[in-house]
């Protein structure tokens, strides 16, 4: 129960990102795991699983999110960041929350219609949530970097959430 409350509190922190060291100190990976699994599940059922060029498989989404988070953490540590390995993984994983919400909204919109209007709605929602994710993770991670290398650390985070947003936006149900 206590763990559940901690996870819930972190979700709230992500939705209203303020610089709080509490999120960084008590890291846990439950939240990222739940978000990753739900995002990967929602990305299933896309066009033509049997053909070669379909959407990403469950394992592919999982690998991209975890491998991407590890690479970004290593990158920021190699550039001289002071944040610990698991703290960084925790923050990057939790900041996938806005994009998971975007995926949920996209699936609901696609249930209603799949024309141009729905595409524009999905585009706006995904772009807004992508911006939110990037800003939230930057707010938590930027302080632990040396000042003249901040852009070098923020760019891979931007790329990471951009790729996830692309996967969400190009999801087409069969």
């Amino acid at each position, binding site marked *: 129960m206590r763990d559940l409350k901690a996870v819930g509190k972190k979700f709230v922190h992500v939705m209203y990102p303020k610089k709080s060291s509490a999120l960084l100190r008590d890291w846990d990976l439950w939240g990222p795991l739940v978000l990753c699994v739900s995002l990967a599940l929602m990305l299933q059922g896309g066009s033509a699983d049997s*053909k070669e*060029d*379909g959407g990403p498989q469950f394992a592919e989404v999982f690998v991209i999110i975890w491998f991407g988070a590890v690479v970004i953490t290593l990158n920021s540590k*190699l550039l*001289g960041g002071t944040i610990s390995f698991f703290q960084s993984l925790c923050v990057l994983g939790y900041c996938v929350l806005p994009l998971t919400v975007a995926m949920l909204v996209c699936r609901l919109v696609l249930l209603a219609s799949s024309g141009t209007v729905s595409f524009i709605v999905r585009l706006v929602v995904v772009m807004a949530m992508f911006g939110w994710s990037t800003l939230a993770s930057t707010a938590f991670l930027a302080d632990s970097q040396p000042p003249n290398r901040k852009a070098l650390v923020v760019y891979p985070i931007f*790329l990471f959430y951009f790729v996830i947003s692309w996967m969400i936006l190009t999801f087409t149900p069969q």
Partner: protein
Amino acid sequence: MCLFSEFDDAANLLAGNPDATTISIDEPSENPKNQYGLLQDSRREEDDELLGTDDSDKTELLAGQKKSAPFWTFEYYQTFFDVDTYQVLDRIKGSVFPIPGKNFVRLYIRSNPDLYGPFWICATLVFAIAISGNLSNFFIHLGKPAYQYVPEFRKVSIAATAIYAYAWLVPLALWGFLMWRNSKVMNIVSYSFLEIVCVYGYSLFIYIPTAILWIIPQKAVRWILVMFALCLSGSVLVMTFWPAVRDDNRRIALATMVTVVLLHALLAIGCLAYFFDAPDLNVLIPTAAAQNGTIVATKTQ
């Protein structure tokens, strides 16, 4: 990092005054330079500009000392990421705008090769090519009745394999080849493996905006873009590696340069051919396409 502070200071001094040979600790090393100065006098001026020969001895010595942490510690790998934002931006600028007569490695890298640029430029290029290819195919096939959009996610792994293989295996082969020629012919210039990886990584940067512009479904535009990008980054590569093979047999030097440019071109053309479908030739007959949808579709394949 405090272990390396003294070496950092010395390296900073040298990086600050590349043309100064009058620092007192450098005097012993001036003599070796004058020993083969007679042979190289005719080329000394252009060498100095191209190579910064006067500091190459010292910076290579210090480079060896800088990376003396054992390779199983984290600090060893941190030395490859010892760059600031403005340095990365400068290196990217240097790879896109070749300055005639200036060598990319001596001007920008100066014995501080980094792995940040090559790694993240390759990652960005992989996703730029995959996403642009997907978008371009979507726009090309948009009006056709039989078309169903697919995200083509498999192509990301194929693009990643191709680009990372090019960015690591070609420098490895080139480095091995240059080392082998160095053992036969005395070259003034020799690059370390990481410097070659660095040059290749940064030279791939021009392909990122090229890949994005390849969304335009015109064959002529795409080929002009390929030629333009190839000229820019190819010239940076040629100007970097020409001093390293110039002293060699004329034919081998030329063959090496041609191979370098050819492989660079092959990567671009291969990506264009595989990820981007050929644009429609029959866009002028929309009504016929609507009536004979399938016939026109098969004709333009």
